[in-house]
């Protein structure tokens, strides 16, 4: 009796580790195909948003990512004045797991005839889906994930890495912090591909700028209590503790560092922080921190106009991932129209040939390895008294020009660049 009970319990524990698994399919009533010029493989362009709808990253992408893609489709239809080819949107929760993501992608490609998968937050899911897309000759547009592997060793010719990557983050924040005098570092690293990549890239930047790395500690993802890891960082005596993690791991690190009196004696560098994290922690806890983003809603009239539309529907300002989801979907749809087909290679060629010119990026081109080369922004979190209106969180300290923000071709391990 008891043995059976324990086995049932263990089975349940294994099966449920991250709770919820849900897949949704939001069917859109697409207008009848009227665009005669565009030849579609099965009469329709299907876009799949594969993202984290329930876990740690569901605020920075999640439902907001689905909304952004939906807005792009609606805007594209409005632009075509009702003559757009049929477009359908599907979405699913990958639970931040590579195997779940690649299974879903295979099902979408083989059974549901999905043409393009986007968002792909969490590096492990992006790396799992990209080879499936290549094998099936379909397109992936990575907006959520960060590791440089995506356009490095693991690059594919059917993939675009649109919004940001660990190189840009490390380069922006790492350089700025070292210049401010933070020349000794210790890393608190999330123990998976993304954390490792961020640590590696930041280490390179810190060293290149004359700084020294004293060590690092790896913590499980997600971790609830980071205090023991923080104490190790404290013992190292480094001036700067680099947080090579994301989401609630980052917010918990910042909160607990203050609790244990680690800050302000040592300072923290949030290497991947989103506006949703700053919103959650509030300015009192984050003021003065440097961070690097590929997009900030309050940059200019264009970004404000789009972000306010997004805000009206989502009740939060967009993260760079969500803005990238919109911009990249729009770029993709325009490329399908220009190519006159939804065949992956032809569409990719158009996407790479045409520069992106919208609120998200100006004159940005997609490189052969799939990297969108665009400007980044070095931001500093405002003091509470400097914030004048809701979501007014950052000073823009520097615009990092596109050519400096992304990994130079000479350093890349992507075979596509070596041709």
């Amino acid at each position: 009796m008891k043995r059976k009970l324990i086995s049932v319990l263990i089975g349940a524990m294994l099966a449920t580790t991250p709770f919820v698994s849900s897949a949704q399919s939001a069917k859109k009533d697409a207008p009848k195909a009227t665009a005669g010029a565009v030849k579609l493989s099965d009469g329709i362009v299907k876009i799949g948003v594969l993202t984290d709808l329930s876990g740690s990253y569901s605020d920075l992408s999640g439902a907001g990512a689905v909304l952004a893609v939906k807005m792009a489709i609606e805007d594209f239809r409005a632009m075509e004045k009702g003559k757009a080819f049929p477009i359908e949107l599907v979405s699913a929760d990958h639970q931040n797991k590579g195997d779940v993501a690649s299974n879903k992608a295979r099902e979408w490609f083989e059974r549901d005839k999905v043409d393009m998968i986007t968002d792909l937050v969490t590096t492990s899911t992006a790396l799992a889906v990209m080879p499936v897309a290549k094998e099936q000759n379909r397109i992936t547009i990575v907006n959520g994930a960060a590791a440089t592997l995506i356009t490095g060793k693991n690059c594919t010719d059917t993939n675009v890495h649109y919004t940001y990557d660990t190189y840009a983050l490390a380069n922006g924040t790492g350089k700025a912090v070292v210049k401010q005098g933070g020349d000794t570092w210790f890393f608190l690293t999330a123990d998976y591909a993304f954390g490792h990549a961020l640590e590696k890239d930041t280490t390179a930047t810190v060293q290149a700028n004359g700084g020294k790395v004293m060590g690092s500690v790896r913590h499980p993802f997600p971790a609830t209590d980071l205090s023991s890891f923080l104490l190790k960082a404290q013992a190292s005596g480094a001036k700067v503790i680099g947080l090579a993690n994301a989401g609630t791991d980052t917010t918990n690190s910042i909160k607990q560092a203050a609790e244990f009196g680690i800050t302000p004696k040592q300072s923290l560098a949030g290497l991947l922080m989103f506006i949703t994290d700053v919103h959650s922690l509030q300015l009192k806890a984050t003021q003065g921190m440097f961070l690097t983003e590929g997009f900030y809603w309050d940059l200019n009239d264009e970004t404000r106009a789009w972000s306010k539309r997004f805000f009206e529907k989502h009740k939060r300002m967009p993260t760079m991932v969500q803005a990238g989801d919109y911009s990249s979907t729009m770029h993709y749809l325009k490329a399908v129209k220009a190519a006159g087909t939804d065949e992956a290679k032809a569409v990719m060629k158009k996407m790479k040939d045409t520069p992106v010119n919208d609120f998200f990026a100006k004159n940005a081109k997609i490189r052969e390895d799939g990297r969108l080369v665009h400007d980044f922004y070095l931001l500093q979190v405002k003091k509470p008294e400097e914030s004048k209106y809701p979501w007014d969180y950052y000073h823009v300290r520097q615009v990092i020009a596109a050519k400096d923000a992304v990994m130079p071709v000479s350093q890349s391990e992507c075979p596509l660049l070596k041709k």
Partner: protein
Amino acid sequence: MFDLLGITPQALYSQLLIGLINGSFYAVLSLGLAVIFGLLNIINFSHGAQYMMGAFIAWLGLTQFGNWIGSPGMQINYWLALLLAPLLVGALGVVIERTMLARLYKLDHLYGLLLTFGIALIIEGLFRYAYGVSGQQYEIPEVFQGAIDLGFMYLPKYRAWVIVASLTVCLGTWFVIERTKLGSYLRAGTENPRLVQAFGVNVPLMITLTYGFGVGLAAFAGVLAAPIFTVSPLMGADLIIVVFAVVVIGGMGSILGSIVTGLGLGLIEGLTKVFYSEASAVVIFVIMVIVLLLRPAGLFGRER
């Protein structure tokens, strides 16, 4: 000896102390589960969600309550929340037990597990819908701000309070169940409900209140956790799997077992973080496997 292992005594002591703090959370949570399982034979999978609700009630009381009643100055402070959250969540537990769980006692354990799991998903989904997952921040109460210098580390006063509060609650619960007349009724009621009822004891009421109490313990732990962890709808789901492992290692339903194992595993986890932090997420499950191989009923459990 420390030189041999390549660590400093400071690091070891501070990690052990942190292990003890985490262990206190494990202890309170697994205690609630053990009480519920021991007396009701229900595997309460919604325990994590109820812990999360406790934390959210504290946060809502501190930051939102004033706006709801139209006078923003009004707050439910930490101490009141420590009392109120267990009561509210316990009351919700009573409703769940009366309307749903009470129908499942005669069936296989699996039904209770599935029902409570479903309830957990619903509760978490609702909170996620309303507040998102980025989390909310709860200020440490003023009395506990700051830290004590122990020589080998700064111990935040609040963490010290967590150890004191959870140990008091754990030992109090153990005392009531094992050493008082009320406790003996409870234990007898689960052993042979008909006989106890024949003596004029209202067994169904007792069971309902027990569930309410177990769930209240989860909410209590939630309020304790609010000032140190980010208050987020997922905070329970992240923790509950570990807590279940603690209960299994301690022996399902054993009150003392869950307290001792909770603290012990917190310490072992702390030690793992000193020597090989990558393994800290796995170590508890490795221990669970070993314990189940050697003592299938758990360290303190009895084979029935």
